[in-house]
């Protein structure tokens, strides 16, 4: 990580007003980067490029721009932080005859331009709306990129932006149940079109099966929170906590909980919840898989707000039992989603596990069955009950192409 090195090299120059620094974060959830900067006591203004509007292949990237807006150094290595005062900050650069114009998008004009129905116009409108919209724009951003993708098949950046916009909506109050799965599908499509994009590859891996040699994604968050708290400060809160898949150690995000050793309802005797109390969303990463490969399943259980359903937290936590088809293997049969601290609560609960498709599996649509058992109440002071929710996780198996290595 080169950020602390650059901070050390630039802090005094910033304080003296000789240079400004701006951070740009290439992450789906930029508040995690803010937590990182808080941990390292770095106060740089931080901009978020979750959709990779800058169209970069990888990070980190450090650029020196003079006072007139001209790039003087690019792809600066960490070691340059020690000499940047002499090599850049104290240099005098000629003023250009004309300063580069400042780009200010005109949203109504860009919207009007979409009547020409070109991929370029829709993409430009989606790009601008993602930045300049009112915060409730993700549905319109998705629609704009969908138009662009339909008009120009195979444009990798559009696919990536579409995936990121789906995930943005998924994490908003306007969430649609399939948004997470759609995000993954478009990210995977983008990476398939341009496999050299490291930033995109990491976005897919972030939610996918644990890598054989796990490279930490967000394991640092635990250390950051502990150290910030030990300083007497309050760690910045995250809008979306990392999923289990986003830690290098499997199961690290799940608190110790009582996991059943045997199937808890083998005869199916517990009364079913068919969505009256809890809705379930499924996402599989990757969304299509070849025989012999592994997928990571993400399940989200959400109390039905219409029926005022609440989790009952004074009993056992939600348990999910995985029932993989014959010859399939899974990294765990039972997964527990811990209770909240309050007596009752309405937060979404997530469950993750991995399943491996056998080499003998025929191509086509299939499903991985399982069920959740949980305690749910009708309202804060309402009747509480024990329910089972049957889940069928859809999965598309594609034939392995000859000569393709796993």
């Amino acid at each position, binding site marked *: 990580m*080169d*950020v602390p090195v*650059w901070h050390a090299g630039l802090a005094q120059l910033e304080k003296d007003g000789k*240079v*400004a*620094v*701006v*951070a*740009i*974060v*290439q*992450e789906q959830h930029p*508040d*995690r*980067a*803010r937590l990182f900067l808080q941990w390292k006591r770095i106060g740089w*203004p*931080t*901009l*978020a*490029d979750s959709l990779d*509007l*800058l*169209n*970069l*292949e*990888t*990070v*980190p*990237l*450090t*650029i*020196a*721009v003079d006072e007139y*807006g*001209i*790039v003087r*150094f*690019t*792809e*600066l*290595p*960490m070691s*340059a932080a020690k*000499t940047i005062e002499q*090599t850049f900050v104290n240099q005098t650069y000629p003023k*250009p005859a004309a*300063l580069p*114009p400042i*780009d*200010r998008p005109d949203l109504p004009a860009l919207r009007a331009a979409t009547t020409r129905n070109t991929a370029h116009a829709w993409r430009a409108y989606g790009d601008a709306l993602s*930045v*300049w919209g009112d915060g409730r724009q993700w549905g319109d951003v998705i629609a704009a990129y969908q138009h662009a993708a339909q008009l120009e098949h195979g444009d990798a950046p559009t696919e990536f932006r579409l995936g990121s916009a789906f995930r943005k909506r998924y994490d908003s109050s306007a969430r649609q149940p399939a948004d997470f799965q759609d995000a993954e599908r478009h990210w995977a499509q983008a990476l398939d079109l341009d496999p*050299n994009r*490291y*930033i995109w590859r990491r976005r897919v891996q*972030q939610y996918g099966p644990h890598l054989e040699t796990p490279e*930490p*994604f*967000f394991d640092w968050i635990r250390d950051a929170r502990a150290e910030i708290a030990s300083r007497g400060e309050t760690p910045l809160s995250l809008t979306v906590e990392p999923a289990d898949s986003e830690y290098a150690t499997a199961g690290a995000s799940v608190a110790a909980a009582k996991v059943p050793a045997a199937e808890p309802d083998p005869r199916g005797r517990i009364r079913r919840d068919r969505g009256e109390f809890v809705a379930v969303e499924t996402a599989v990463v990757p969304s299509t898989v070849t025989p012999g490969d592994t997928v990571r399943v993400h399940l989200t259980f959400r109390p039905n707000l219409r029926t005022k359903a609440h989790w009952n937290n004074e009993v056992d936590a939600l348990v999910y039992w995985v029932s993989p088809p014959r010859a399939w293997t899974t990294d765990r049969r039972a997964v527990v989603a811990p209770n909240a601290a309050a007596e009752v609560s309405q937060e979404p609960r997530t469950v993750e596990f991995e399943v491996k498709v056998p080499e003998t599996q025929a191509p086509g649509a299939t499903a991985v069955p399982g069920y959740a058992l949980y305690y749910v109440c009708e309202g804060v002071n309402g009747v509480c009950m024990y329910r089972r929710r049957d889940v069928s996780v859809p999965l598309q198996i594609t034939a392995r192409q000859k000569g393709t290595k796993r």
Partner: protein
Amino acid sequence: MRASVIWLLSAAVAVAALGGGAADQPKPKPIWERNAPLPPGFNVGDAFPTFALRSAADGRPVSVAEFRGKKLIVNIFASW
């Protein structure tokens, strides 16, 4: 890890360019240690684009043009 390796490999060339002082433009790197070409506006001598992105702190759109008039270091990173 791959990015780190690429950066280590590219460090020597870029340091040499900085240390030399006379030329702003680093020598071209061999293909095996390069990423894809940077987009227009990110290369030495380019006018840096005046794009806007949302502030990670409050979601407000911020244009990098707001920093014009000062020497600016742009650090693009990810915390993973």
